[in-house]
């Protein structure tokens, strides 16, 4: 309810913005829908940084209005439709939960182009885009195995969706490539955003004996707890070094800017077409924050792995890999299909958690 009203107020403000901006007719509108606030310090902030880069690069040719705090659900459809109706040429909807709403609105506005982040439903005027976060998580796993004295890491997870399960598996694979007995404890916070709960999960993991933390939730609270308790941790979505100058080993940083510029340029050139894009480290859609608080040899190893992933020499999901129950999944040398990864609903061997079904 509260979000609905915020969204309505924001859209009213935007409508006002549109009517004044109508004089500059040559400028195309590239619009953004955010699930959170643009200063959330994580996911949405990373998208908004991308939008600002787009503005800087192509600001003479495009305008970039946005709507923030749009809740997933029926309100999302209204918000996206309002954007489409207001003359946007290209609309980026930046949360998994906007998927069905984007599909519906895209069908109603065949002349408007849409791009939906992290989803899997496409249409002639609806592209999807995603980032291979798991590449970064594999590197984190390797670092964790080198840096952990106890050989146990804690993983604060949000919801059991393929994206998160894939990340957990990639982390464990990286760790096992260094220490075959490495253990991973997973705690499901069942939220993307609740600093208190995320901190509680971090404390629980530390109290139960892990000495390295990683998270797939949005705030810096776990990093802060790790810092207080004097253990090491990885950042998520944004560089979280400010929350743990002596704690953060590295972070997966979402850098959407290059992608937004590329797609907007395609729109201006008339070469935009619906694709299902899944870019990784090599495309610059995600980058690793500086490797800090680790000895030089670990840093060198991380950099080498990063280079190998970029060059395509190393694919984190390369066999032999067994599923959690010990049954074979990938044969030696076999690489996982993208489709399987995007729908991942099983753990690999070595993860202690039982996947909530």
């Amino acid at each position, binding site marked *: *309810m*509260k979000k609905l*009203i*915020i969204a309505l*107020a924001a859209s009213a403000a935007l409508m006002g913005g549109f009517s004044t901006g109508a004089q500059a007719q040559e400028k195309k509108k590239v619009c953004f829908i955010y699930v*959170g*606030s643009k*200063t*959330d*310090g994580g996911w949405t902030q990373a998208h908004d940084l991308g939008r600002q880069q787009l503005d800087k690069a192509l600001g003479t040719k495009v305008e970039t209005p946005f709507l923030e705090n749009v809740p997933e659900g029926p309100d999302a459809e209204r918000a996206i439709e309002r954007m489409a109706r207001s003359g946007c040429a290209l609309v980026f909807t930046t949360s998994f939960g906007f998927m069905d709403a984007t599909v519906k609105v895209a069908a109603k506005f065949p002349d408007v182009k849409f791009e939906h982040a992290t989803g899997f439903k496409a249409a002639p005027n609806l592209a999807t885009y995603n980032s291979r976060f798991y590449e970064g998580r594999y590197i984190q796993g390797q670092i964790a195995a080198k840096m952990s004295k106890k050989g146990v890491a804690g993983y604060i997870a949000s919801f*059991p969706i393929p994206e998160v399960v894939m990340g957990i598996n990639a982390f464990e694979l990286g760790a096992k490539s260094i220490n075959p007995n490495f253990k991973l*404890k*997973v*705690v*499901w916070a*069942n*939220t993307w*955003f*609740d*600093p*208190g*709960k*995320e*901190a*509680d*999960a971090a*404390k*629980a*993991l530390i*109290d*139960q004996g892990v000495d390295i933390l990683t998270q797939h939730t949005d*705030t*810096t*609270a776990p990093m*802060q707890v790790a810092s*207080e308790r004097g253990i090491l941790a990885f950042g998520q979505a944004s560089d979280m070094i*400010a*929350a743990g100058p002596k704690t953060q080993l590295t972070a997966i940083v979402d850098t959407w800017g290059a992608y937004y510029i590329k797609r907007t340029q395609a729109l201006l050139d008339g070469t935009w077409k619906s694709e299902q894009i899944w870019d990784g480290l090599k495309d610059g859609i995600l980058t690793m924050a500086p490797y800090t608080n680790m000895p030089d040899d670990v840093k060198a190893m991380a950099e080498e792995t990063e280079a190998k992933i970029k060059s395509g020499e190393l694919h984190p999901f390369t066999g032999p890999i067994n599923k959690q129950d010990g049954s074979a999944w990938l044969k030696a040398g076999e690489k996982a299909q993208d489709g399987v990864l995007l729908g991942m609903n099983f753990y690999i061997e070595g993860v*202690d*958690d*039982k996947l*909530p*079904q």
Partner: protein
Amino acid sequence: MFEAILLTVITASTPLVLAALGELVTERSGVLNLGVEGMMIMGAVCAFVAAQLTGSPYAGILAGILGGGIFSLLFGFLTLTLVANQVATGLALTILGLGLSGQIGEAFVGQPGIKLQPIVFPLLSDIPFFGRVLFSQDLIFYLSVALVIGIHWFLFKSRTGLKLRAIGDSHSSAHALGINVIRTRYLAVMFGGACAGLAGAQLSLVYTPQWVENMSAGRGWIALALVVFASWRPWRILAGGYLFGAVGIGQLHAQILAQNLGIVIPSQFLSALPYAATIVVLIIISHNRRTTLINTPASLGKPFVPDR
């Protein structure tokens, strides 16, 4: 490890207890303020900003109390002076608070905060087992316990408290007796706001010393539920708040223990446990309709217009 868990439970429960205590006093005077979440988040942002600017978390605590208290005046003016609908105004207060706090705190997102340090009582904290847990805590925890005792005394032992409860049960009768209904309610609303603000200060100075938008994440609503859960009695708020906090922390540990033992317990089930526990206890304590009715302020949420 048990001690560490208890410490975590205290941190998680304190904001719930504080906000619920404030709302309890407000509701005992017959005013239903659904804006706890909004006042809490205003307290959180005011506390954080003040602590960052002055470098002192104690200035932050003060700012949190003032922030919540002053913000609640808006609710008081609308519902008590202008006699607006309390439910609608309370909801509006929450929405306004969430938006306004985002504006105020925008420049402070991502700044590492200043943590409020514990005050250690030298001898008491050496008592084995619970000494460190109870006597090396921060000021806000001590305040929360003092408030439970103080509010209990105030409501049930003091003359002013009796008047306040009388207003909550029948504002017309209280008015006829010459008690100033509106003034008392203003004070009760502000007290509720100040407590919610203090709870917010706990969030941004102790629980997670940082500022992010929406960081209260629904705790104000849980506090509101706690008041009903506690059937408007301070000691039950303390018990209810800690039960809720303990089950919430316990389920996280249960997840890890289940992994160590190789047992499958769906995490969604564990996450729902605090809420399920609340419902069960609510059923148990409310099975006696008579006592529930006795404790419920009879004119809760009803507008009062003094006849001239």
